[in-house]
């Protein structure tokens, strides 16, 4: 039972992180390799402010900092680097390659800054102004922070799915993913929608960074890189472009990892996602819920 609670909490964080990445990959054709360091840097910004203010920040403010910093970084990455690459690339293949390379370069910058600032030590929100309380829940313990994670996860997960499914701008975003030129012929302003999508993605990454840092104690400068590859595994597992697939993938991976941690020393935990990724790429590259091309000639 305790494992289940932990797995769901971890799954919520994975989901928030991976959904944002999946959102911009499926629609804007941006596989943002810097997504992981945005996650990490947002959490670090919270940590930094916390120190500066003498540990007086409430939890809500910490999360807010994560969201704002994440959204800001994501939008900047898009406007300054990723969008210019997309615009200048001579074909789809080289765009893909340059986006990945540019993203790797971008990802290195915050990581290096935090390494310098922390001297490569882990950082954490030690007891701040908020208290960690635990409650009995069906024979297991659940902390108030885990409850926050569940609530935020469910609310945001649903909101993003509904946004894409039901709203006018969500529909427009999906159409960009199918054929961006025709989307502009529909009168859709891709610049603005792209920024909005990147902001949502970055905000979710920042939020998940703050939440993970609060609930699991500490992060390091490199935490984002590992999480990025985990999210890639999750997205591939669920199928690129499928939000539902991403959600399922996130909880699946969280479950598998939690089981492994419960039964071993836990040092192999990172290998789970990479192994899983490998397996999916080999057996079913389009993912569990990946869409098959719908076409008729």
């Amino acid at each position, binding site marked *: 039972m305790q494992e289940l609670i932990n797995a769901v909490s971890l799954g919520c964080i994975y989901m928030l992180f991976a959904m944002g990445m999946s959102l911009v990959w499926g629609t804007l054709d941006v596989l943002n390799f810097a997504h992981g360091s945005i996650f990490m840097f947002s959490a670090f910004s919270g940590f930094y402010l916390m120190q500066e203010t003498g540990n007086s920040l409430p939890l809500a403010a910490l999360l807010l900092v994560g969201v704002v910093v994440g959204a800001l970084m994501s939008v900047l990455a898009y406007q300054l680097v990723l969008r210019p690459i997309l615009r200048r690339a001579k074909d789809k293949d080289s765009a893909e390659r340059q986006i990945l390379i540019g993203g790797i370069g971008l990802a290195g910058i915050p990581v290096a800054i935090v390494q310098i600032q922390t001297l490569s030590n882990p950082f954490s929100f030690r007891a701040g102004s908020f208290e960690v309380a635990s409650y009995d829940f069906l024979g297991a313990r659940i902390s108030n922070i885990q409850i926050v994670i569940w609530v935020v996860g469910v609310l945001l997960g649903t909101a993003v799915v509904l946004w894409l499914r039901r709203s*006018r701008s969500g*529909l*427009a975003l*999906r*159409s960009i993913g*199918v*054929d961006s*030129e*025709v*989307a*502009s*012929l*529909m*009168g*859709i*302003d*891709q610049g603005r929608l792209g920024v909005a999508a990147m902001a949502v993605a970055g905000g979710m990454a920042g939020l998940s960074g703050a939440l993970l840092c609060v609930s699991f104690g500490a992060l390091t400068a490199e935490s984002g890189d590992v999480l990025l590859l985990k999210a890639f595994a999750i997205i591939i597992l669920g199928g690129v472009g499928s939000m539902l697939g991403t959600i399922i993938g996130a909880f699946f991976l969280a479950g598998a990892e939690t089981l492994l941690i419960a039964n071993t020393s836990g040092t192999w935990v990172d290998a789970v996602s990479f192994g899983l990724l490998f397996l999916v790429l080999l057996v079913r590259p389009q993912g569990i819920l990946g*869409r098959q*091309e*719908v*076409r*008729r*000639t």
Partner: protein
Amino acid sequence: MLEIDELHVSYGKVRAVRGVSLAARPGRVTLVLGANGAGKTTTLRAVMGLQSVDSGRVRVDGTDITGKDTHKVVRAGVSLVPEGRRVFAPLTVEENLLLGGYSTSATDRADTLQKVYGMFPILSDRRDGAAGLLSGGEQQMLAFGRALMSRSKYVLMDEPSMGLAPSVVQTVLMTAREIADSGIGVLMVEQNAEAGLQVADEVVAISQGEVGFTGDVAAARADRAILRAFLGESALSN
């Protein structure tokens, strides 16, 4: 009136469109003829802001839209039915149509949707199905419907009959005629010259990036050069 005035467009070092002037008027079908590579598609793309313009002007009812971003051109009242239809295959028919009306108000959108369904009952029947599962002719209807959803005053059509079964070509072009009859200005690029002439009011012939002929259908049919280039003298003219 949609006016294209002395338009020049180049692609890298190649001058693709060299001083093309033509116009589309409400309620009329203007047919643009020209061989592959004559610069027709480039002209349409330049009007829509999908291609940058070297010089020249594009005006919609007097408003200059030259070089505007595509979404602004659409908002100014011009839409394009692209070559090869390019419906959003994984999205439903209704979603495709709603996207067409992206820049209109919610009430207008609902209104126009009903009108489009009335015009194309087949789309109404298939509204929840994926657009990619429609037949070629149905997809062309969807592409038309999608353009109508924007409530544009001018609709540009790039090769609407391309790749369609012959029996469907007539239906599609008649639909283009109906669209014009409802008061919209249609500017149509069409390879199938004969079929195109049957629904057109005015004809513009482009060759190597320049306008070679402008006139009404009767004049076009009387023009020997047009006949030779687009209609006859092939092995089929038995």
